[in-house]
């Protein structure tokens, strides 16, 4: 360590304002995790590319049995698969954003700057969505282009279905991200968060959805709300629970708000 004069000529030219600085820092932390970003890209863009390559190979190998890779049916199927795999990617991003600083011990280093814990927590949302939303949007763009480009005379979705599907995909994956973020911030462990989330979404919720004695209580399940909001034809009719659109919206909002609030509460109150 040298004993140079202290660093005084500090200028803030080109440095963004606080909320953007914090959000960019969060983006940097996620973007630089090569393993995580590879998985996110594979589960979104990679998955739809593989799916359409498979559709096309089937069609080329036996065009009488397998229709063209594009068209409405494959579009609905691809959007559903993207919503599932994209949610997995989003939950991974959320859990990492929520628990990454804690796991590395860096959260303490940020708290001692005097910056409010809520500001540190809040910055994780735009910071991670800056990565998630483009990935989902790009994957959906690929689906849309191939749906039309490879339709070969089949019916294609209308503009309204394209728009609704795109928005629904962003909503579904954002909700998975929010759950991961809230739970990750609450628990402080990325691995535990991922295990709990996947266990709940993949095992517990589908089982509960089929327990008919639960009746209307099943409306409170997250996937029930999301499936109800989904554009027509994306989710299998048999998987949908009959519920009003407004209840579905309320369920989705409550899940998202509760997850964010739990994460915020723990971030503010935990010993760093």
């Amino acid at each position, binding site marked *: *360590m040298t*004993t140079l004069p202290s*660093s005084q000529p500090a200028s803030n030219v080109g440095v963004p304002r606080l909320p953007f600085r914090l959000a960019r*820092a969060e983006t*940097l932390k996620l973007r630089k995790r090569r393993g995580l970003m590879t998985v996110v890209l594979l589960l979104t863009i990679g998955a739809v590319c593989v799916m359409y390559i498979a559709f096309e190979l089937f069609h080329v190998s036996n065009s009488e049995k397998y229709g063209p890779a594009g068209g409405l049916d494959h579009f609905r199927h691809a959007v559903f698969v993207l919503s599932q795999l994209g949610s997995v990617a989003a939950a991974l991003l959320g859990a990492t954003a929520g628990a990454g600083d804690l796991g590395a011990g860096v959260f303490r280093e940020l*708290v*001692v*700057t005097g910056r409010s814990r809520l500001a540190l927590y809040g910055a994780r949302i735009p910071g991670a969505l800056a990565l998630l939303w483009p990935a989902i949007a790009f994957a959906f763009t690929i689906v849309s282009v191939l749906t039309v480009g490879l339709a070969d005379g089949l019916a294609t979705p209308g503009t309204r279905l394209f728009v609704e599907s795109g928005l629904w995909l962003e909503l579904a994956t954002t909700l998975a991200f929010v759950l991961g973020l809230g739970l990750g911030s609450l628990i402080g462990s990325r691995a535990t968060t991922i295990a709990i989330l996947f266990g709940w979404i993949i095992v517990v919720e589908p089982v509960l959805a089929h327990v008919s004695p639960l009746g209307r209580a099943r409306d409170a399940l997250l996937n029930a709300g999301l499936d109800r909001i989904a554009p027509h034809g994306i989710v299998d009719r048999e998987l949908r629970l009959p519920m009003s659109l407004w209840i579905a919206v309320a369920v989705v909002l409550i899940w998202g708000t509760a997850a964010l609030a739990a994460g915020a509460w723990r971030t503010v109150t935990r*010993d760093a």
Partner: protein
Amino acid sequence: MIDAAVEVRGLTKRYGDIVAVDDVDLVVPRACAYGYLGPNGAGKTTLIKMLLGLTRANAGEMHVLGLPVPEQANTALARVGAIVEEPRFHGFLTGRENLWIAAAARESRAHARISDALIRVGLADRADKQVKTYSQGMRQRLGVARCLLADPELLILDEPTNGLDPAGIQEFREFVRSLVAEGRTVLLSSHLLGEVERICDAVAIVDRGRVVTQGSIAELSAGSDWSIVIACDDPSRARSLLTQQPEVSSVTTDGDSLRIALAHARPLDDLAAELNRILVTAGIGVYRLELQRASLEQLFLEITTRLEDAA
């Protein structure tokens, strides 16, 4: 407005039945290096964590740079740089990126200080390598660089020489003194007594959550006891002779020498001459006799040993 860099009154922190910090009063003056000295488990890190808003106090008041915390922690801590326990980083990011993240949480000018901070701690040439490739000493330096991003009035450093090699420790000492020379305050917690004695202007000795004594190094040393170290050719007979003297409170073996604790009954020079005469008259060859004032380390050991005995 309180002018001390740090002032705490009646600060208490409990973890269940364990009292980690027990009714501590502490005043750290500005523009000095202040040691917070105690054995492991004495409550040093807990006090620092409370000052930095990392954990809540059960009772007491704290002021940092004149501002009450945690009420105005955001303002107060904006001009504080701190390392708690060991500095932690994202290993997959470079040193510079880690500083960029820390700067993002500070004022906008902090980004412009990154390069200077890296130069100052001697890491400019490794700044673009991933932190997971850094040695512990380099991480410690990067932690100090992160502190400098705040252009801090106060640095709180918890066991800062951990992981540094002897040359690094020497550099660190000079570095802390240079910070103090710039008018900054350094609060340094350590269990390395010699380090605190060399680096700091003032010290608080803490044990079992309580501040046992505090003051400038000079004041504490002035109040410490003198002893006489004697090396001779028959230590066991010398020891039995010396323990019979009324001015001698105890005789302990210190390597191949005897350390004689004195009861302050007479001027030291006279007493040393008298003890020498007794030994020589008894036919014991004395080949070294030295007056020593207890170091801070000895004082620290005396105080904490007394507390242990009392407990």
